[in-house]
């Protein structure tokens, strides 16, 4: 039993960190925030899936992907396609020249639902596609790169290029994908209104539980021998290879897993925000995801969640008042973190957290001492 516990939560500190995060997102936010703000936090937390995936891939695996938006987007689009088909029932789209197909197809003179949209009539297929399509796509990219020993900067550039290609493809094929506007106007899931406050609250909690489950699954991977092999590969790839491991397979696996959890985030994004567009697939969102992970701490699964929340709170607060400044601030923050705190917030906590607790203890002691001293003085006074 203790074995399982250790595998899932790490040491005691890991368990405490996990519980604090769970309490924050499951109790504190829902109690403190109105439903609009809670929905906003829910949206931020979908990005956290991608940030957590980068902790595995970049922090531990040493492979930086500048294309996690690809998988976030595929997951989001898969979910959006299902919802869009439901919203485009023949009754709802009776005024179109071809009723029963999504409105943007009708605007683009498409008269028949394309073949690859067909399976998305089924919700179970959609859930399957959210998990499997990005994983297969990642497998293809990963196998093509890692088997040929392409890594490091080259891998980062190639993933970035793929995300650009995908964006261009989505924007260009307007009739099939909704183009630059994305897939919008999503209303119901199996007849249930997803735009209502109660639905949004429910999605928020589902999202939180999925995120916590992903963190536990990731921790299982990192505490297994696989996790140590990842670290070893980052340090001395050749030594791992000459210890009898097929290094490429390990990289492909972690890349596929990272893709899958990013896609879960994407699907939850669509459900909570009610649309999906190419602006969540391309370079900018992909790099933002890296920044979330870097600032939270690329070696900390939980830190990545805090990094995501913090940056997005900042983004919302600042871009309301100084929209132009925000991008510069975020860029500056990223450079500062990389240069001065390579392990991000989690690293700062590791390094200085105990100073803080020590200081608190010291202050506590001081107070209790001065109190007892005061008591002593009082006692003396009463004697005399």
């Amino acid at each position, binding site marked *: 039993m203790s074995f399982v516990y250790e595998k899932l939560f790490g040491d005691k500190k890991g368990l405490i960190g996990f519980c604090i995060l769970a309490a924050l997102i499951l109790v504190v936010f829902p109690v403190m925030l109105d439903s609009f703000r809670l929905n906003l936090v829910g949206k931020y937390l979908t990005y956290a899936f991608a940030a957590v995936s980068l902790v595995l891939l970049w922090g531990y695996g040493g492979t930086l992907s500048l294309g996690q938006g690809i998988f976030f987007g595929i997951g989001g689009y898969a979910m959006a396609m299902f919802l869009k088909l439901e919203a485009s029932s023949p009754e709802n789209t009776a005024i179109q020249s071809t009723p029963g197909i999504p409105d943007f197809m009708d605007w683009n003179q498409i008269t028949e639902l394309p073949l690859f949209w067909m399976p998305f009539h089924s919700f179970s297929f959609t859930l399957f596609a959210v998990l499997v399509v990005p994983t297969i796509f990642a497998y293809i990219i990963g196998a093509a790169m890692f088997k040929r020993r392409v890594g490091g900067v080259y891998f980062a550039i190639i993933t970035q290029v793929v995300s650009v290609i995908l964006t261009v493809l989505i924007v260009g094929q307007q009739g099939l994908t909704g183009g630059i506007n994305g897939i919008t106007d999503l209303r119901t899931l199996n007849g249930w209104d997803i735009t209502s406050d109660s639905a949004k609250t429910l999605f928020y909690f589902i999202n939180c539980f999925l995120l916590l489950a992903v963190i536990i699954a990731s921790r299982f991977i990192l505490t297994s021998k*696989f996790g*140590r*092999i990842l670290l*070893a590969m980052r340090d001395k790839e*050749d030594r791992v290879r*000459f210890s*009898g491991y097929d290094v490429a397979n390990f990289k492909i696996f972690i890349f596929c897993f990272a893709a899958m959890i990013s896609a879960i985030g994407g699907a939850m994004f669509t459900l909570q925000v009610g649309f999906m567009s190419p602006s969540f697939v391309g370079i900018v969102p992909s790099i933002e995801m890296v920044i979330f992970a870097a600032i939270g701490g690329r070696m900390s699964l939980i830190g990545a969640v805090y990094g995501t929340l913090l940056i997005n709170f900042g983004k919302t607060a600042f871009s309301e008042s100084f929209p132009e400044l925000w991008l510069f601030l975020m860029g500056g923050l990223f450079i500062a973190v990389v240069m001065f705190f390579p392990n991000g917030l989690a690293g700062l906590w590791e390094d200085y957290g105990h100073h803080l607790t020590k200081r608190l203890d010291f202050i506590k002691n001081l107070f209790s001492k001065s109190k007892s001293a005061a008591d002593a003085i009082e006692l003396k006074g009463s004697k005399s």
Partner: protein
Amino acid sequence: MNMSTNTDFTLAIEDLTVSFDGFKAVDNLNFYLDRNELHVVIGPNGAGKTTVLDLICGKTKSTSGSIKFLNKELTNLSEHEIVLAGVGRKFQTPSIYENLSVMENLEISYPKGRGVFGSLMFKHDAVVRDKILEVATQIMLEKALHTEAGLLSHGQKQWLEIGMLLIQDPQLLMLDEPVAGMSVKEREQTAELLNKISEGRSVLVIEHDMEFVARIAHKVTVLHQGKILASGDMKDVQKDPKVIEVYLGH
């Protein structure tokens, strides 16, 4: 593609050539290694010693020729397949995982859970613990199991890498300059260690330190410009006029 026949040798290298842009780093090499044999390869810089190890372990692909290990052709296998066949190799500069503990370094080298899913499900049980302790004792690091490997002395790092090979129980152990950077006492301990571990397997060592070579070698081969210059007992080799010419003639 190879005409070579099966032999009783652990390692049989025949007509091995590798050329880098026309420069033949290893030129028509024939080399045999027996079980229980500790064979040292010496030679001046650039003689092709490390390249031979690279060829055996698959780091470099040969231009022509054959490398047979227990009658299994290695030249067309990938690096990890060669390791699985039973070949272990230590690199010239200690190649260990500096950020991991000695225990974790040995655990990663433990020959179970080498697949993706095997490693996810790998259990660090009593058998693994005992084996790690046994090897750690052999390489004199049993007290440093929980030390971060990066904090070990240079000599201890060399031992750790040897231990990482021993835990795989390879039939052929290849060591590239195992005593570089070691103190006199550490050299003695290493010699003892190598003599012990050569029982039941074949060991191929590259070394410059002649005193050390004399202490451990069953057989010595001198490599020069990718070719074998002399081979045999240490004493005979040292007396060989061609060897003296190569080492002192320039």
